């Protein structure tokens, strides 16, 4: 019984779990399991790029230098988790990071407020539903009582007592008084000690400002960055100073490495590691002409020596690259402080040119070279005459034109043929694979007829030919295997029965 169970277990694992595990390991890359929040990359984006969403666009400054004249108005510091720091490099309005989209308005809700009455403090929580209007119209609603219930718990040997005198006092602000009863089970008749006044007040969530008069009050959007988290810590550029915009994303998950700007915004810097764990850092220095200088430092190893590659990119006030330079020195980067220590500059070694061999012009006049040349010369002349005779006779005695003339006639003959015409002479070449069935990108076009994109039209091209070609190659391989197996089985079949 035990053996049967083990056999079935192995069979189930071999038939189901093993293929699933194999497919899973093929699909999911191993680094997906890695968790390294300090990894980040720096990407250069032009003015119109990288301002929306958390997508990483543009060139990686650690992967290579930008070309002079390339658009570079925004610096994106991005982590694998999708967090970004977005730093404009010029004062151009186009480089201002766009705020996320937030709801334009919302209804006021009960917000937690600490009170300080009595001998201790209590907190009023948001009541169920969160809308203040029903509470205002119903002075004895259970919602008001629930605020009191959540405000204070039993303590100091006293049980909780909710004062039924909780009333709405003015506008959208109300309170109730919490008592601690002397008896464990509580009761309104017992001697009670007032421990605090618990307040609840209508208010708006972060990023919204209350407007209007009670009870017709609404919350209007005042700061989209405060209202909607977008995992992007944005910076503002004013003149030659950089400053962090009031954005909770800058202190959010902590997975992004925001630039730490010096006093006055004269420079901002950040430090982290590359995906392979090597320290890297950057410094942005706004320049007086309205542009910026971006320096990236990447630590690496050359011939066992720890080195730091420094790349300096100068951006003009028109958001284009005006200068780039790179150098490698011995040194290291402190991942805690971001301090870059450099030493001796390493000059890149260039391979020496291949030595030039100068043969004398008359080297073939004597010796073995002269003998070989004398042997080959008449043979080459014979071959030349065979290929380019004026005319010759074939074995049947028919005079045919020179071979070059015949070859020249072939292109003229081929150009008169119509490709892919299913005639008797051309049906074989036009079969497969022909131009008719060659994979081409599929054009996609259309016009939006509703919504905010109404009237906008455009075309695109869907190119999946590489993927289809892989499928085609796989089918070709399978077909070849099938053919071989089929022929093998055909010839291995028994001869009994004859035809």
């Amino acid at each position, binding site marked *: 019984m035990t053996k049967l169970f083990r056999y079935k277990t192995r069979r189930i694992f071999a038939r189901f779990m093993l293929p699933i595990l194999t497919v899973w390991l093929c699909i999911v890359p191993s680094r997906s399991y890695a968790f390294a929040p300090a990894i980040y990359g720096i990407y250069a984006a032009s003015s119109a790029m990288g301002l929306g969403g958390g997508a990483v666009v543009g060139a990686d400054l650690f992967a290579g230098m930008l070309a002079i004249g390339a658009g570079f108005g925004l610096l994106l510091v991005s982590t694998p988790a999708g967090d970004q720091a977005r730093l404009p490099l010029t004062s151009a309005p186009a480089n201002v990071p766009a705020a996320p989209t937030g709801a334009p308005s919302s209804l006021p809700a009960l917000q937690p407020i600490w009170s300080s009455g009595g001998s201790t403090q209590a907190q009023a929580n948001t009541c169920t539903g969160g809308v203040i209007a029903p509470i205002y119209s119903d002075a004895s609603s259970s919602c008001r009582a629930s605020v009191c219930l959540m405000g204070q718990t039993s303590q100091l040997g006293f049980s909780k007592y909710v004062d039924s005198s909780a009333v709405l006092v003015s506008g959208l602000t109300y309170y109730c008084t919490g008592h601690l009863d002397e008896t464990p089970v509580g009761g309104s008749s017992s001697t009670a000690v007032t421990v605090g006044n618990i307040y609840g007040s209508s208010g708006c969530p972060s990023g919204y400002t209350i407007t209007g008069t009670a009870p017709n009050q609404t919350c209007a959007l005042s700061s989209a960055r405060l209202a909607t988290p977008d995992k992007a810590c944005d910076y503002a550029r004013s003149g030659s100073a950089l400053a962090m915009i009031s954005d909770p994303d800058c202190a959010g998950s902590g997975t992004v490495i925001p630039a730490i700007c010096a006093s006055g915004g004269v420079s901002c810097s950040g430090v982290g590691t590359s995906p392979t764990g090597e320290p890297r850092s950057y410094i942005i220095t706004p320049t007086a002409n309205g542009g910026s200088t971006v320096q990236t430092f990447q630590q690496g190893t050359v011939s066992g020596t720890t080195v730091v590659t420094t790349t300096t990119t100068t951006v003009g006030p028109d958001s284009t690259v005006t200068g780039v330079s790179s150098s490698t020195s011995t040194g290291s980067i402190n991942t805690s402080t971001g301090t870059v220590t450099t030493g001796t500059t390493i000059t890149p070694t260039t391979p020496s040119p291949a030595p030039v061999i100068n043969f004398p012009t008359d080297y073939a006049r004597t010796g073995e070279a002269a003998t070989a040349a004398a042997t080959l010369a008449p043979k080459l002349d014979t071959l030349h005459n065979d290929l380019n005779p004026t005319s010759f006779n074939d074995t049947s005695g028919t005079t045919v034109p020179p071979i070059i003339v015949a070859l020249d006639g072939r292109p003229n003959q081929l150009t008169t043929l119509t490709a*892919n015409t*299913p005639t008797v002479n051309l*049906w*074989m070449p*036009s*079969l*497969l*694979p*022909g131009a*008719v*069935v*060659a*994979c*081409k990108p*599929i*054009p996609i076009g259309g016009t939006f007829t509703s919504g905010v994109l109404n009237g906008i039209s455009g075309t695109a091209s869907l190119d*999946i*030919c590489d993927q*289809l070609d892989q*499928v*085609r*190659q796989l*089918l*070709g391989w399978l*077909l*070849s295997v*099938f*053919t071989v197996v*089929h*022929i093998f089985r*055909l*010839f291995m*079949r028994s*001869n009994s*029965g*004859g*035809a």
Partner: protein
Amino acid sequence: MGAFFTAVFGSLFGFIAQYITKKIAYAGAVGASLLAITVAFYAAITALINNLLFVVTDQWILNGIFSVLPANFMTCMTAIWSAEILAFLYRHQLFTIKAVSSAN
């Protein structure tokens, strides 16, 4: 393609029809008939695919045809057909020789 089939089957069974009995010569005629039928079948399949490709203009369908018809499709089909006919003729001739030997 015709030359290919002729080379494969003609050289193999031609001498049988020439030097043995009329009955075996009849079997050689069977091989020639099979050759003609196979070539005609190949031409018909080719014409069908060509006509289909000329009628279809949608790039999605053309890309699909491109995917499911690998470059070695007709090569493999030709090899399979040739093997089928070769095996059939071999067994047919073997059966005929056995029958003639038994009769004599």
